Every structure is written in structure tokens, then in C-alpha cells.
């Protein structure tokens, strides 16, 4: 047991969780206090002692599944004797036989695919948890085609299983059943509620399948090897440029608490600036209540001017996600700036400040940026040179000594002219010019990247591959 726990903690550290020695000892102490056969309690005991941040919980759960999935009576691989599901199946068969006069009997293995689909439909309709779990096992066994030792990832098996189950049409069938139950039409609200209900059941079923596959893989390959293949970066370390769809969703979720934190921190920083020089007038005024003795010296608190921000972002394919996140972050804390203006470009350039002004909903604004902004000039391939020229021509006069200009992009210019003189001009008028590059530093200035050309004229080029780096930069900025 001790070995297993040590391996588990080591894997957590590998996954990027900061687990200290004390916490490790606490975990060992904690698991002594709970009955070992209670898997849920075991999980919470480890979670409470080892994971101290909610954003790390997912990573913890994955590692936990891998290390402890083969434990507990519920989760054994080999089905010995009859299970609940078999029982239920027999009952259903009974009913069928009465109806149709035939039936095959026996366990689930002898089902036809149609019967399996039918059972799944019933289980989903009734929200029958035990049945769903049993069916998940059965589906994996039947459809995933898992072979021991085959070097294929879990997603491949998942895909194969789901393809055979056709859950999309299942949802439609379930909805149809609900409609019939009320005898015809559901109102819009009811329709939505029913759909959300079934969606969550289907999601649950998918999760069962996923963990079943994982269990089998662990049994085949061993926990350590499995944990290694499943190791994923924590949300704050996911690279913008290579994030998968799921990771994107997690990133967006991670962004919200982050902006809240950032805004609170920045506001605090502003209020708690260092003390300024003596405020003579105020001190004299307050001395009156002490009979003219200046007992309570008053100071002038510096009120640092809030910077004015101009964001100029490349939103062409590869860096679009990065631009989106930066815009979202900047607008979420726009209270920290006296004014925020934003421009997007590919080879043409368009101002999108209005989109953010007219709505409070940042998501909607971002959506409009993606669909409505007029950013294509010739062919829709990044042309930083032309975009900067347009910027300088149209908006150059708005750049003033209070303005901080942020240029976002990978500076992959498709071998067009760089027109880096624009950046130089901007820098002479603006307070600061920064360049944020979502590419790893080692890729800079390779191929058609000319970030060095532009960077020479800025106050700094920053690598912003993930949320952590972006947060660090924004904090410095405000």
C-alpha cells in the first residue's frame, strides 16, 4: 500500500502538482483514518490532503483513476457469477417472452447489437446508473476491439466504441419519447430541460466507457506506463497554439477566476502604492483638532495614471486562439485601464473597439470579431507590414504619450515586406510598445518569422505560450 501511495504521489508531481513532503505525510495519515474498502472516501482523503487548488482536481482524478481503478469490489474486471445487469436482463427477457414468445436467455454476451441498443435506450431513458455501468462494460468489450500489448491510445478505442453506439441518434430517440409522453409538443423550455437531462446522462455514460477503457489499459500495461501516456498539462500550462477543443473549453473556464484574481490584485496594488511626500495643507487642516499641533502628518498618495491601451492583434488561423484569449483577458480587466482600443488584422486591419463597447458579453464580442471584422485585404494570409501601415495611416495620430501599444502575433509574415519603421514610429510617440508572441522562443526568427525585426523597435518581446505567461505579463502591464 505504501509503495502504491508513493508511486501515486510521484506521478502527481510528474503531472505538475506541487505536493510537499508534509502533504505526503498527511495523506498517509489520512488514509489510515478511513475504511480502506470505501473507494470514495479514500479518494477524498487523498484529494483533501494532496490537492490544494481546484484547477488541479482534474489532473488528480485522472491519476487516481489510473492508480486505483483496479481496486474495490465494484470495479473488478472479471465478472464472476451474475451481476445486477444480468438479473435485469433476464427480467426484461421474461417480459419480452410474454410479448413475443421468444428470447435467448443467458447473459449479456449473447445480445444482438439491436438488443444492446434497446437496453441502452431504456437505461438512458430511466437514468438507471447500474445498468449504464454494465452496458458501458459490455460495449467496450464488444466494440473497442482491444488487444493486449497493442500500442494504441485510449482515444482510439473510445472512438471505435462510440462509433458503434451512435449516441447522437439515441438522443433524438429519447427526445421523441419525451414528446410522446406529453402527447405531442413540448414547449421550448421543456424541450431544453429534457435535452439537458439526456445530455448529462449520455455524458455520464461516455465517462463510464472512458474509465472502462482506462481500466482495461491499466490492467494491460500497468499503472505507471498508463499514467505517462495520460499526462496532460495543467490548464494554465496548455499552449494556446496547440490546444485541443476540450483544452480550449477548460482554458476558458480557467480564464474567468483568473481575471477576477488579477483585477483584485491590480486594484489592491494601485491602492497600496508607497507613501508619497508630506501633504502640508492636509496636515495643517487636521492639526486644528489637536489645537494646532501637527500630531497626525498626512501624506500625498500617488495616484498613478491608468495607462491607455491599444491592442493590435493578428487573428489569422494559427494565432487566432491566442489573440482571442488576450482580448478576453484585457477586456475582463479593462477597469484597470483608462481606455482600451482594439484592432485586429490578417492582411487588412479593422478597429473592433465598438464590438466590445456595445455589449457587456465578451464572448459575443469575440464572436463578432471573428465573423464581422473586415480584416482581409488581398488573400487572407498574414501581412504584418501592410496591416501596420494601415494602422499608422488611420490611427497613428491617436497614439500618444500615455498610450501603451500591444502587438500580438507570431510575426510570420509570409515573406512580405516588414515595414518595421511603423513600429519604430509608434515607439517614439507611445509610452511603451510590447510584442507578445505565442510561439516558443526557439522558433522565433526561423522560417518566415521576423519577430526580431519588429522586436528591435519595441520595449520588449514576450513569450506568451500559455495562460500562466499571459497572466504574468498583464500584471506587469497595469
Amino acid at each position, binding site marked *: 500500500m505504501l509503495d502504491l501511495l508513493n508511486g501515486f504521489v510521484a506521478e502527481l508531481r510528474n503531472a505538475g502538482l506541487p505536493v510537499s513532503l508534509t502533504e505526503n505525510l498527511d495523506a498517509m495519515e489520512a488514509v489510515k483514518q*478511513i475504511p480502506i474498502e470505501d473507494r470514495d*472516501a479514500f479518494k477524498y482523503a487523498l484529494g483533501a*490532503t494532496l490537492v490544494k487548488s481546484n484547477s488541479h482536481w482534474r489532473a488528480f482524478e485522472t491519476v487516481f483513476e489510473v492508480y486505483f481503478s483496479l481496486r474495490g469490489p465494484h470495479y473488478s474486471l472479471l465478472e464472476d457469477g451474475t451481476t445486477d445487469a444480468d438479473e435485469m436482463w433476464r427480467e426484461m427477457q421474461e417480459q419480452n417472452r410474454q410479448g413475443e414468445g421468444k428470447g435467448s436467455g443467458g447473459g449479456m454476451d449473447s445480445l444482438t447489437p439491436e438488443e444492446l441498443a434497446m437496453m441502452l435506450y431504456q437505461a438512458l431513458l430511466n437514468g438507471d446508473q447500474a445498468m449504464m455501468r454494465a452496458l458501458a462494460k459490455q460495449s467496450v468489450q464488444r466494440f473497442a476491439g482491444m488487444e493486449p500489448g497493442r500500442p494504441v491510445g485510449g482515444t482510439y478505442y473510445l472512438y471505435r466504441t462510440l462509433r458503434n453506439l451512435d449516441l447522437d441518434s439515441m438522443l433524438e430517440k429519447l427526445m421523441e419519447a419525451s414528446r410522446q409522453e406529453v402527447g405531442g409538443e413540448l*414547449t421550448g423550455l421543456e424541450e*431544453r430541460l429534457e435535452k439537458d437531462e439526456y445530455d448529462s446522462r449520455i455524458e455520464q455514460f461516455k465517462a463510464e466507457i472512458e474509465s472502462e477503457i482506462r481500466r482495461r489499459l491499466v490492467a494491460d500495461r500497468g499503472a505507471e506506463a498508463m499514467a505517462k501516456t495520460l499526462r496532460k498539462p495543467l490548464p494554465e500550462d496548455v499552449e494556446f497554439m496547440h490546444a485541443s477543443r476540450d483544452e480550449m473549453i477548460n482554458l476558458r473556464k480557467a480564464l474567468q477566476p483568473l481575471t477576477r*484574481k488579477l483585477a483584485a490584485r491590480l486594484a489592491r496594488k494601485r491602492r497600496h502604492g508607497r507613501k508619497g511626500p508630506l501633504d502640508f495643507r492636509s496636515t495643517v487642516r487636521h492639526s486644528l483638532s489637536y489645537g494646532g499641533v501637527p500630531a497626525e502628518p498626512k501624506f500625498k498618495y500617488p495616484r498613478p495614471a491608468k495607462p491607455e491601451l491599444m491592442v493590435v492583434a493578428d487573428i489569422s488561423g494559427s494565432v487566432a486562439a491566442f489573440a482571442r484569449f488576450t482580448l478576453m483577458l484585457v477586456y475582463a480587466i479593462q477597469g484597470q485601464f483608462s481606455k482600451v482600443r482594439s484592432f485586429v488584422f490578417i492582411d487588412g486591419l479593422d478597429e473592433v473597439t465598438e464590438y466590445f463597447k456595445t455589449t457587456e*458579453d465578451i464572448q459575443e464580442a469575440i464572436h463578432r470579431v471573428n465573423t464581422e471584422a473586415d480584416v482581409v485585404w488581398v488573400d487572407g494570409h498574414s501581412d504584418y507590414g501592410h496591416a501596420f501601415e494601415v494602422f499608422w495611416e488611420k490611427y497613428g495620430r491617436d497614439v500618444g504619450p500615455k498610450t501603451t501599444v500591444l502587438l500580438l502575433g507570431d510575426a510570420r509574415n509570409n515573406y512580405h515586406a516588414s515595414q518595421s519603421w511603423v513600429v519604430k514610429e509608434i515607439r517614439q510617440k507611445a509610452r511603451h510598445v510590447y510584442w507578445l508572441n505565442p510561439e516558443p522562443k526557439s522558433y522565433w526568427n526561423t522560417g518566415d518569422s521576423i519577430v526580431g525585426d519588429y522586436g528591435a523597435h519595441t520595449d520588449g518581446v514576450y513569450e506568451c505560450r500559455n495562460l500562466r505567461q499571459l497572466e504574468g505579463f498583464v500584471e506587469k502591464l497595469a
Partner: protein
Amino acid sequence: MGMAQLDQAPRFDSVQQVRDGLRSVNYLADDGIAGVVYLADRLQKPVLVEGPAGTGKTQLAKSVAEQLGARLIRLQCYEGLDESKALYEWNYKKQLLRIQADRNSDSWSDVSDDIFSDEFLLTRPLLEAISAPDPVVLLIDEVDRVEVETEALLLEILSEYQVSIPELGTITAKQIPLVFLTSNNTRELSEALKRRCLFLHVDYPDMEREKQIVLTKVPDITENLADQIARIVRSIRQLELKKAPSVSETIDWARTLVLLGIDHIEAQQAKETLHILLKYQTDIAKAAKELSMEAKK
């Protein structure tokens, strides 16, 4: 480890007992919550409760206190909280009076010994909690509001259950209280603090639990209505909103619907009362649109 552990009978025998006890005071805990409270008692460690606003973090501490029949001592944190508000303070006025009362009789050492004694000490929540002879539950509310430097004040009491007062020496706990710290996560707490605590993330409850909460908290509500409320709230929370409805807002909504004599929510009624659940106009519009509450057809 080198901490002064007191041999103290555990308060709970099993996780189930925690759960049942909390239920008896109308707090519906899930496995995670009950499990961590149980461990906190067994390991004699504080619990750091984190999660979105309005999910019953503070209520958890109150309910545990109620369940145990213990006194709840609460320290509300805010920016600028300091030692004299959290730990202890010398009662200067009384000390001054003492000195003036017999100016001539005592020698200096007598006076100085005397004025720095228990009699002149004003206990603040933290000191009060550890010096209490009766069972107490200590709640340190919204700990994320104090500055990082002030957090250090808490460390000694959280790990050693003692307070050091330079003039008096160290005051050690007579009994180890259950300690809950809550945080709305407006800033990252220090590693040192997190390391000393068990971590409990309290999220929005799942649909079934929320329904049960509504049923316990709102008298006279029908099962059917509670179910519908829980479903609608779940769907609303799935949207991307500025602020998702909290559990307390769900309860308020349920109360309103009961007062209005509604037992089956129609789209129109839902739309008209949505402002109880959501606080931003954009959120309300979005939810109404997404859930098709807008009158159509």
C-alpha cells in the same frame, strides 16, 4: 511531527455520522464534504473551504458547530485586519488606570508584572478560540481578503494551536477546536497556509442534491416544483454567464415561486422571476433566450 497534539476524543465515529448530523441541522453534505470534516477532526487539522460565492461555505462551519453543540467563534477577514483585531490587544486604558491608582506604593517591577497579566488582556477571536474551555468551532471567514503578510498571523495558530504573546509567553490550546477557513479565491493563498490545511472545494451541488436542498430549506414546496427548479437552474449554470446563480439564489427563487402560488413553472413565469436568480441584465437576457422563455408562437 513536533506539534503539540492533544489526546482528545474524536468527535465523530464515522463519515456517515457527520453526514447524518449535518442533515439533522438541515445541511445536506455530499460525500466529499462529510469526509473532509471527518478527517479534519481525526487529523486535527483546519479545513480550507473554497468555491464560488453562495454555495454554503460559511454555512458549513455554522452547521458543524450547531451539530456539535459548540460555540461558533467567527473572525471576519478584511483588508487591513491586524494582530490587535485578530489575536489580542492590551487594554491600555485599564493599564493606565492601574498605574495611576497607586502611584506611590508599588515598585516598578510589581506594576509591570501586574499590568501585563491576563486581567489586562483583551482576547480577540483567535485567542479566544484556543483559550476557550468549552467546545468551539472557529470560522475564519473570507481569508483571501487579508494581505499575504497578515496570513502569517494565522500560521502559528493553525499548525500548533498556540499563540505567543511576548509579555506573557505562549498560550496553548486547552482543546483543539475545529477550524474552518473560507475563501472566495480572489487571490492565491500562500503555500504555507495551504500546506497546513485540508482542502475542500465546494462547488454548485448536482441536480439531485440541489433539489433536496430546496426541499429542506423551503417549507410547503411540492416535490414536482423543486425538481423543476433544480433542472432549470442546472441548465442555466451550463450557460456562459457573468455570474451563475448560487444555491442561496436558487432558494430565494423557490421561495418566491411558492409565495406566488405557482406549482408548475411556465416559460412566462420563469422569465418574469428570473431577476431573482440572475443579477446582470445581460445574463437574464441570455438565459431567457437560451431556455426559450421568450414568448413565441
